[in-house]
């Protein structure tokens, strides 16, 4: 029995050596594997990003084709959408930001939304009177008349053609004193809607507003078409409140709003008096196209309720503003923003509304 002890010691040392070798080999293999995995993941995500970018560009081109086809005569025998009352729905009103199924379909998971700019407030066509009403509406109940006048004067000085400061206004002398200093536009033709943030007091006035969704600097339309209006634009219009806006959005999902009488079915008369000078039935030839890959996965934390319309979680998308001229020319591109901010795309936030249509 005494002879057995050294044999046991030898076997133990061999096991220890084998174990250490295994550990070292495992570390070696794990390190190499993780390196390979990281590189593979990087390559995979690059490929996905490149594919999505190509699909977005393709969908934008198809959306442009859709807008050009809208200018063509409608095909004979085309199945038109009809309301419950048997009225034909205006196809151009589908460019109100709803998810679109294009005539030439894009990749299945690509979401396309088009916004007609007649659904926004035109900064080029807004009258001084309307700007004053908008400022007052924005300042809330009982606005300070001096503050209204101060903002209105700043707007006038920014958009007039001279550098002469009006009463309570602001011209170069004021803007150059800021850090960093800059010059006022001194032209009614603004380059972009975000430019109004540089006007004295307007950044505070429109704080938290998605300006691109509410305003436009393109097109010749002076009024806002309620069939196409964005939620952001309607929130700025005097005479409308959140409840009326949601009812309007719910109403236009099933019916066109063709005249002031039909607006009056939704909007009380006292509100309509204020709203009337802002609205019209025109459409424009300028559109914002938004394209983005759809997110289909539902969050596990917030399961969607039965029957509740799904709210699109995407808020940023590839955006292109185009002017459609005719069917022989490609639309003219006015602005491209790869990281454009989507307007509020949520469906109407009312369960039901009670509007009786006259026979």
């Amino acid at each position, binding site marked *: *029995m005494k*002879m*057995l002890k*050294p*044999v046991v010691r*030898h076997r133990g040392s061999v096991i220890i*050596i084998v174990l250490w*070798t295994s550990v*070292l*080999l495992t*570390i*070696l293999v794990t*390190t*190499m594997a993780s*390196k390979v995995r*990281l*590189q593979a993941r*990087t390559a995979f995500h690059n490929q996905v990003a490149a594919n999505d970018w190509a699909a977005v560009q393709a969908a934008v081109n198809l959306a442009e084709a859709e807008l050009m086809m809208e200018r063509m005569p409608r095909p004979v025998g085309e199945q038109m959408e009809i309301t419950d009352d048997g009225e034909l729905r205006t196809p151009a009103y589908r460019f109100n930001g709803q998810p679109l199924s294009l005539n030439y379909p894009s990749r299945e998971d690509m979401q396309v939304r088009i916004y007609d700019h007649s659904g926004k407030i035109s900064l080029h066509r807004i009258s001084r009177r309307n700007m004053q009403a908008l400022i007052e509406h924005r300042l809330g109940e009982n606005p300070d008349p001096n503050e209204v006048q101060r903002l209105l004067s700043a707007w006038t000085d920014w958009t007039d053609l001279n550098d002469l400061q009006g009463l309570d206004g602001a011209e170069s002398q004021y803007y150059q004193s800021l850090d*960093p200093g*800059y*010059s*006022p*536009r*001194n*032209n009614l*033709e*603004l*380059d*972009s809607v*975000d*430019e109004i*943030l*540089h006007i004295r007091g307007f950044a505070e006035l429109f704080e938290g507003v998605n*300006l691109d969704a509410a305003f436009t600097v*393109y097109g010749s339309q002076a009024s806002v078409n309620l069939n196409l209006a964005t939620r952001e634009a309607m929130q700025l219009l005097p005479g409308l409140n959140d409840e009326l806006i949601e009812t309007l959005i719910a109403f236009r999902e099933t019916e066109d709003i063709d005249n002031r009488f039909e607006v009056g079915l939704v909007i009380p008369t006292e509100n309509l008096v204020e709203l009337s000078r802002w609205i019209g039935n025109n459409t424009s030839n300028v559109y914002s196209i938004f394209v983005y890959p759809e997110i289909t996965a539902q969050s596990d934390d917030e399961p969607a309720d039965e029957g509740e319309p799904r709210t699109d979680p995407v808020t940023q998308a590839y955006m*292109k503003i185009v*002017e459609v001229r005719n069917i022989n020319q490609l639309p*003219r*591109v*006015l*602005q*491209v*923003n*790869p*990281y*454009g901010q989507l307007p509020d795309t949520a469906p109407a936030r009312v369960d039901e509304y009670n509007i009786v249509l006259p026979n």
Partner: protein
Amino acid sequence: MKTCNGLQRGRRVKRTPVARGFTLIEIILALALTAMLLGLLSSGVFVVTEDWNRNSGRLDASLDGALAVLQVERALVGAFPHSYTDVESLSRRIYFEGEDSRLGFVSSVSPQRSAGLMAWQLYNGEDGVYLKLAPAFSDDPVERLEAAEAVLILPDYTAEFRYLYAELDGSKEWRDDWQGDEFLSLPLAVYVNFTPLDGFDDQLEPLEIVARIQANQHRSIRPNVMQQTSL
């Protein structure tokens, strides 16, 4: 071992001289083999670790580089014909300053996601490609860009710029400069070639951008076609 039967015990008794121990040669051989194996393993681990450090460093650098290049490409895609009034002539101009080693333009893309149009300026420094950013506001952003803080976005690279324009007959050509205030429009596309500085050729890969500028004309300012074609 105490439970061994008689047969096993008999065998062990038989092998007793063999199990007594190792000879010196066996021990030396075993130690030599173990040392060799450990040496091989440790050198393997060392090589892999070195490789990992080098590769992860390169990967990080290439990811940073790829991100910078992607941002510049997206900014060029979102280039905007920003107009301003020239103080001296009171004429309306378009801001775009393109040279072969420097580029200034206005884009709807802002790295800080701030509202409004952003003026970008890319230029070559001694140790790489630098970027300056300033709000475009409603006037000429040159002075603000000059005062802005420069950020080194691509170390050890140098950038070269080319600008695509179309002749009246439709043929297209790459130019090495583009002055927006004269042409009153933007080029159809911009080509950027980032090449490693001398001494970094073996470590860095050349990078390229070809960005199409779709919004190349202002909506109301007509391009100065005569100026473009005469050049």
